[in-house]
């Protein structure tokens, strides 16, 4: 039998094994950029870890990874260990994997199939071990990484992040539709919202059968806390994300 490069890719055969001890995969997705998805992803991972869960965080924003900046990881001096694969270093109790360990702060311009190649490579060689939660930060939009997440993380529960802005809401309905059609379940998190859930966002959750996990209020102090885990955890945003994490864990405990 002759192998055809992309269809008969041996890496695809091992991805399921790499994720076999991961109980829940939560891809954090958004339809628009700038909604705070990376901050939410990082804080969600840290909050779940603080609650005693074993947590991994994968930055799958392949061409523009920034989760390491939020976590204060110096990608120039930190590298995953090699042990029959690549073992992600622990940051604040979270196993953290990113292409930035290898691309540094350099640009990484890639075409679609090259992005998929990176996703396959990372999923095939990363040794997560036993995890309660794997949080996956994805780039905005419904393109390669988002589609790969749905394709490779069977049984995942995507968490869509949106703001209450009317512009964002138009596009979040598109993503919610894709998630609803292809996964069948998932979550909605309202970021930069008010103290109460907005009807506009919660109605989208109802329309597409997604569970509304709560609102995370705008917090102007977060930018100055980026890169410092202690200060990040002292922000109002982190307190709100802890609430989101508790509701997520509660929903998945049943």
């Amino acid at each position: 039998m002759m192998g055809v490069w992309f269809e008969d890719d041996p890496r695809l055969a091992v991805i399921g094994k790499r994720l076999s001890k991961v109980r829940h995969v939560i891809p954090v997705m958004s339809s628009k950029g700038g909604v705070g998805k990376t901050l939410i992803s990082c804080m969600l991972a840290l909050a779940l870890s603080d609650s005693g869960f074993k947590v991994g965080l994968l930055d799958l924003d392949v061409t523009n990874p920034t989760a390491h900046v939020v976590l204060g990881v110096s990608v120039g001096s930190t590298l995953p260990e090699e042990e029959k694969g690549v073992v992600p270093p622990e940051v604040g109790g979270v196993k953290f994997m990113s292409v930035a360990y290898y691309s540094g702060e350099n640009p990484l311009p890639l075409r679609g199939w090259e992005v998929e190649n990176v996703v396959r490579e990372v999923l095939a060689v990363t040794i997560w071990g036993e995890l309660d939660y794997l949080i996956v930060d994805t780039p905005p939009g419904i393109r390669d990484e988002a589609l790969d997440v749905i394709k490779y993380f069977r049984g995942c529960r995507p968490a869509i992040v949106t703001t209450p802005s009317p512009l964002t809401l138009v596009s979040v309905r598109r993503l919610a539709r894709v998630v609803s059609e292809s996964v069948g379940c998932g979550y909605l998190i309202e970021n930069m919202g008010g103290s109460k859930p907005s009807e506009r966002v919660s109605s989208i959750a109802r329309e597409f059968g997604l569970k509304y996990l709560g609102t995370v209020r705008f917090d102007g102090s977060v930018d100055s806390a980026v890169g410092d885990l202690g200060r990040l955890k002292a922000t109002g945003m982190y307190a709100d994300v802890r609430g989101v994490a508790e509701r997520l864990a509660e929903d998945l405990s049943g």
Partner: protein
Amino acid sequence: MHEWALAEAVVEYVRRVAGGGAIAKLTLGLGELQAIDEEVFKFALRELFKEYGIEVRELRIEHEECLLKCRACGHVWRLKDANLEEDVREAIHFVPEVIHSYLRCPKCGSRDFEVIGGRGVSVKEVVKA
């Protein structure tokens, strides 16, 4: 031993397509870009096939030269001609696409190029016994 993880992928693939029986011939491609340590890779393959009780009677490794083609100007060049530092080669070893972070077309300077051959590990042929 990152090679181990890729060897595991090959073994899982062979188990899947060949159903676990003996293999008369397995041909693998090793692309120059990923710079896989062939001895370590073959050692891992032997150990893993043994673990799964799969006999591979002939293992062939084909080395593939890495060629790059600029999408902006069409220039084709060889990885051999690029002068890459050791730490960059190490990074590329783990995720070959990060070559776009460190290399540009020698003719026009664009990073928009493609690897047209010799990227990484591939399965060329599996012949069941």
